[in-house]
């Protein structure tokens, strides 16, 4: 069984702890194990890349880490965050690889939503969203609807939204997959800056080795088996 509980020297409790966590999908004859039993820890401020081929289980593992799904066997815990119900948007932010904006809401409303869900006032949420959009150089799109912007722009807005609740862990599933390389690196730069400013841990799934190389820790997953390459 692979063990990814490295960095034992760290004194903090991990943000996320997985023990023998596996995930099956499908039913009957179509049932298959997408993530084999895996052990892992994610510590505060840690920056992890997750690479693997399409269908290797990257997204499913990220779903387990972010509490979007529960393991079929084993456990996934969030020692510093509490129960699974309290994870988002307070502690964990998620950026998706596909279009993930809420269609009926404008760009600024989408970005402000995590703060509104946290009970912030509309005025404060909106001004904070505008600041965040400005940071991602998306101010001119603030009043546009998701259907009025491109896929790349939509993905950047999604990244901006994922950082709005000032999470302590950002889970990003190929967050720049629909951006050109220049834009992608610009987005990653901003993500880097913001996560480092806030001491936010980051786990990012990526195909592009250049993106993966920007991270400190590298995980790979093949056919559902999680492996740690380097630290």
């Amino acid at each position, binding site marked *: 069984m692979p063990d990814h509980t490295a960095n034992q020297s760290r004194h903090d409790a991990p943000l996320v702890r997985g023990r023998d966590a596996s995930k099956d*999908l499908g039913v009957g004859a179509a049932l298959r194990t997408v993530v084999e039993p895996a052990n892992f820890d994610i510590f505060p401020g840690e920056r992890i890349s997750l690479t693997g081929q399409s269908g290797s289980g990257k*997204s*499913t593992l990220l*779903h387990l880490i972010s509490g*979007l*799904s529960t393991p079929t066997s084993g456990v996934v815990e969030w020692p510093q965050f509490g129960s699974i*119900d309290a*994870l*988002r*948007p*307070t502690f964990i*932010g*998620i950026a*998706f*690889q*596909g*279009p*993930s*904006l*809420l*269609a*009926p*809401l*404008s760009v600024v*409303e989408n970005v*402000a*939503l*995590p703060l*509104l*869900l*946290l*009970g*912030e*006032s*509309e005025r404060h*949420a909106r001004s904070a969203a505008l600041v965040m959009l400005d940071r991602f150089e998306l101010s001119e799109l603030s009043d546009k*609807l998701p*259907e*009025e912007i491109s896929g790349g722009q939509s993905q950047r807005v999604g990244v901006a*939204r*994922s950082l709005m*609740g000032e999470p302590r862990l950002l889970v990003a*599933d190929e967050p720049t997959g629909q951006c050109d390389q220049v834009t992608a690196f610009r987005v990653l730069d901003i993500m880097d800056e913001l996560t480092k400013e806030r001491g936010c841990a980051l786990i990012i799934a990526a195909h592009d080795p250049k993106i993966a190389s920007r991270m400190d820790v590298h995980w790979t997953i093949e056919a559902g088996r999680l492996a740690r390459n380097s630290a």
Partner: protein
Amino acid sequence: MLEARWLSGLVRRRRGRLVSITVGVALTVGFLAALGSFFSAASSNMTHQAIRSAPVDWQVQLAPGLSASAGLNVVASEPGVAKALAVNYGNVSSFSCNCGGTLQTTGAGKALGIPTSYATVFPKEFRYLIGAHRGVLLAQQTTSNLHAAVGSRIQIGLPGGSHVELRVDGIIDLPAANSLFQAVGQPSALAPQAPPDNVVVLPASLWYSIYQHVNAANASITQIHVRLANVLPSDPSAAFSDALARAHHLEARMTGQALVGNNVAALLDAARNDALYANLLFLFLGVPGVVLAILLTGVLGASGGDRRRKEQALLRLRGASARRVVGLGALEGLTVGVVGSILGVVLALGVGKLSFRAAHLKATGLLTSGWTVSAFVTGLLVAVICLALPVLRDSRTLTIAEGRVALGAPRRPLWARLYLDFVALGLAAIVFIRSASNGYQVVVAPEGVATSAVDTTVFLAPLLLWIGAALLSWRMASAVLSRGGGVLGALLRPAAGPLTSVAVASMRRQRTLLSRGLVILMITSSFAVSTAVFNATYSAQSRVDAGLTNGADVAVTAPGTTGLPSNLANVVQAVPGVASLSPMIHRYAYVGADLQDLYGINPRTIRNSVHMVDSVFTGITAPQALKALASRPDAILVSQETATTYLLTPGTMIRLRLQFAADHRYHTVPFHFVGIVREFPTAPHDSFFIANSRYVARVTGDASSQILLIHTNGPPPPVAAAISTKVSPLSGITVRSIDQQLSATLTGLSAIDLSGLTRLELTLAFLLAAAAAGIVLALGLVERRRTFAIAVAIGAKSRHLASFVWSEAVFILSGGILLGTVTGWLLAEVLTKLLTGVFDPPPDHLSVPVGYLTALLSVTLVSGVVAVVTSLRATREPQMDVLRDL
């Protein structure tokens, strides 16, 4: 094979959508087949009842000089004639009897000569009361007038002055005297001739032996009474036309030597009008239900359009031609159509069995009826249109790339830019006002004319009202959502809290989806409300109609103008269940040369026993009319028809001739015309008078009453049964409850078992309203499954989603139900006005079926709440299939 794999995949992966559309098709087919077959069966039933109710189909009156045997030979050889018998009508100058020690003499009458088989062929003409069924049979009223009995010897005066003595063998009643003694060939515009008060029926041989020596002119006539074979078509209009044509054919053959009294055509004339009204009810009440079922099926078919477009685009990407993609849609439509239509026919069979038992709608009849075939084809078309048409449309208008992206922002629809909602409402008002100016003459069926038709243009009024109201509701809902953000925000803030602006923005941008949901619910609610209110009003009015015909809960009626026993009122008053009673005088009065019914009432007390409605009076209410009648002893209310025919105007003096008890002669009596009445309890529909009973009794010297109108404080039938035991069967007195009248009435739509139709319509309306609320909300939520999954992924809790969902649900439910109720009520008003001819008399106001409407509201709300709660429950867990696409 791609087609088989595609179908198999749909069944496995899109089962819910397929099942819901199949159910929609089944409902459409089931309702259409049941309703159509029901009306078809009802029309046939009307024809059958009309034909069966004719005591004699034709009375062929022979011209003087033509022998009975010659006439009989011609008539009997006419195609379609099953039986023909000669009947002789001899005039009698007087009847007299020295019975019980006193000599009684009556006025003129008739002596009928009938062949021995007459009663077998025409059993409805005579009712045997006592004594023999053959020989000299004396009519009950004549028996009463002469104080005669079986065995009495009576003298009849013959034209020319001679007399004949006869021994009475039996006493009979003549239930169909009006038609038996009709004036054959009399123009229909003239008032019908009153039957003779005195009648004796003799064997043909005896009649000939008496009248063969009578040489006076016009002493007798001969009629050939005819029973037609079962040759008439089942449709009332066709049967009416056929009966008329056959009679004309016979008249033509006999070249002016015979006139046909066409009793069966007269009855079919009434039945065809009823059938046309039945067709109207089908149009007004049935078609909207079918349209709604189709609409809901269409909504179900359109659901998941984005997903379907993406699948379609993928198929194209994988190399399937546009034609093949459309073919797959058609295959899906045909499969759903066939399964849904079969289920629909099965449903119709079940519904027919449950709802239309009284209409004798047999399963085989349903299966073989054209309606079932039409409904089946409709089901196929609906399924193909709902499933294949969008595929065809998209294949022509979208490229593969366009198909893979969500569609753009909704545009303001064309109808809104053209203000078609206001146009439709304006046109509805114009059509309605035009119908009102015509007196709501929807059925054009002139008396005696073979052709009749429904003025279908009036159908446009409720149709345009429905469409206009639906479009206006859409406009209003859309306007509230797009411009009423402040109001919406204030309303939503308590539930949505800091998410208020987001919730309002979300609703504003989804105004097409929400407006569509609201309008669908509004349409179904309006259908349910209008159907329920109309049916309740119809039901209440049927009882009023039966009450008018019967007179009261229970009516005790003496035969002819014979008085009821003077102590009968006291006897009846003591019967348990009798709350109050009102005696009523019934006489005949001459206005000019026309003999009309005259009723004497006590205007101060009649309302204790009789439910009087305002609509039977013209220009005044019921209390005002009775007050006017009570204002002076000689006051009189005149029927609308009499007032029109004789140009009488209220406030004038009119002179009638009434028979005085002292000399049995008619004398002029002055009356003061105080008001016009259209209908009155027990009175005929056309010509009559209502006067003060005290005045009539005083001037005629006869205080006897002919009718007792009884109000019961419980169910009328047992009270009627109890009263029946108190009257002698020989007296000829009839006791009839309103329930008997309801079941026996052949006028209007009572001929149909409308309760079955009502059950069907109300059940469908109930199902549609409930389904609409659930489907509209559930589909709206299903279509935003992805939105909810994203919201949950970024941290929305159930309470956050609930604030969004409930805001929308409250908007759709409250708006749809409110606007639907208002529109439904307006539709019921319009329908009731347009179908004035169905109501007899028109209702004073609409009836509110409180129980049904409460249940409807409850089931709609419950359905909506269940849909919301179920959808919310489904959003608690992140939707993995959606998240995996993110």
